[in-house]
């Protein structure tokens, strides 16, 4: 499996560290305990397309959001997490 890092180009998966589901969002500090339990522990764990966080530890140190099919390991998209976060902020602001 190779990830096409937007900064470094295609690199072997051994250069990256995995951090799981990229779609969970940290609740507000005063959110209900059940929201925090959901955020920390519960996952959709889909068989199919999965948006997930990878860290390019042996490369550019960027956090990446990878869209990958968990049934085939096919990769549809690799984006910088910082760009996704910016997009999220703009969408929330507009």
């Amino acid at each position, binding site marked *: *499996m190779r990830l096409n890092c937007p900064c470094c180009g295609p690199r*072997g*998966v*051994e250069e990256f560290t*995995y*951090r*799981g*589901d990229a779609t969970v969002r940290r609740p507000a500090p005063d959110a209900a*305990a*059940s929201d925090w*339990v*959901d955020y*920390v*522990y*519960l*996952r*959709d*764990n*889909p*068989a199919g397309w*999965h948006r*997930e966080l990878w860290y390019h530890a042996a490369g550019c140190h960027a956090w990446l959001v990878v869209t*990958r099919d*968990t*049934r*085939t*390991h096919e990769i549809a998209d690799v984006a910088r997490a910082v760009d996704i976060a910016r997009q999220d902020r703009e969408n929330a602001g507009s």
Partner: protein
Amino acid sequence: MKNDRYSIFSLLRETLRGQTGWKPVWRDAAPQASYDVVIVGGGGHGLATAYYLARRYGIRRVAVVEKGWIGNGNIGRNTTIIRSNYLLSGNVPFYECSMKLWEGLEQDINYNAMVSQRGVLNLFHNDAQRNAYIRRGNAMRLHGVDAQILDVEAVRRRLPFLNYDAARFPIRGGLLQKRGGTVRHDAVAWGYARAADRLGVDIIQNCEATGIRMREGRVVGVETSRGFIGAGRVGLSCAGNSSRVAAMAGLRLPIESHVLQAFVSEGLKPFIDCVVTFGAGHFYISQSDKGGLVFGGDIDGYNSYAQRGNMPVIEDVCEGGMALMPRIGRVRLLRHWAGLMDMTMDGSPIIDRTPVDNLYLNAGWCYGGFKATPASGLCFAHLIARDEPHPVAKAFRLDRFGRGAVIDEKGMGAQPNLH
């Protein structure tokens, strides 16, 4: 039920008959309209659950529905190791219960599962690790489990060919559980299937659960690729795919599915007489009765339902093997495969009721499900039959994450790929 018990007499009879009288080990059952209990998932745990439901709890109208065929899932994809060398009090009694069931399994189910208590030896390589293993060994002995610390000379006498004086990871000794060992994994599936079948359990293969039918917050049956099957109670026992099946009942689980690879070499003359684990990397090895070296290491580390892994982990496993026993360097790999692991957020399993009435969950076995097979089946059967947890599995609750009562053997926190 008839005269199909395996014994020296059945063996002699078939020898005289030219082996023409053996019957299929279980019936190829078609689904009936309804059952008292339907178990979703015909793996080792599901079959064991059905067996103990019929044998110990007297519930005979039981079906096991399996999407593929018996033995195709993780019961046939593991490295066959049994042990009960756990640290935490939520875990030790359960795994020791399992070990005791292994010790009487073959007589119980009348099937040769080749249970071999050849010992499990966890090596340590520095003082801190020795202390940690002494602590673990003491925890085991406090729970009545056998454990002993071997110094390096005792390890050397047993396994003279290890890489004792490696510059980075010299071997200092090991924690030995003599009662640990290996079991012929396929035989566990076949043996439980046969024993359950003899008690009237229907084992329905090529029958995939496609939905869970509920009425007023209560489960009433399972939709399958072979039609609807009504059920008084439903048990989900499909580790690897637990999230997908539980989602049919609207549940989200504290689980990620990961992929674990395993390996077997060409056959060699016997030279490893126990299970050995490397303490400085993740590598474990034993030698099967056919002579093949059976070994494995870490999970790949990312969500996967693919039943195949990638090269970096193969490399990592082989590096661990070479660091521990350089003499296997020229051995050729015969086969290599992968299975799906329910990796939970604390590295420990779940055997519990669910928010849906009469729906029970057995999940989250991480990569330690095989050794748990008998106790998992017994405790899940107990839960389904009595609607209360078995005493040795009472810590494996689904709500423990929200209550802060996690059972985290490795102390890694809520990150499934680190357990």
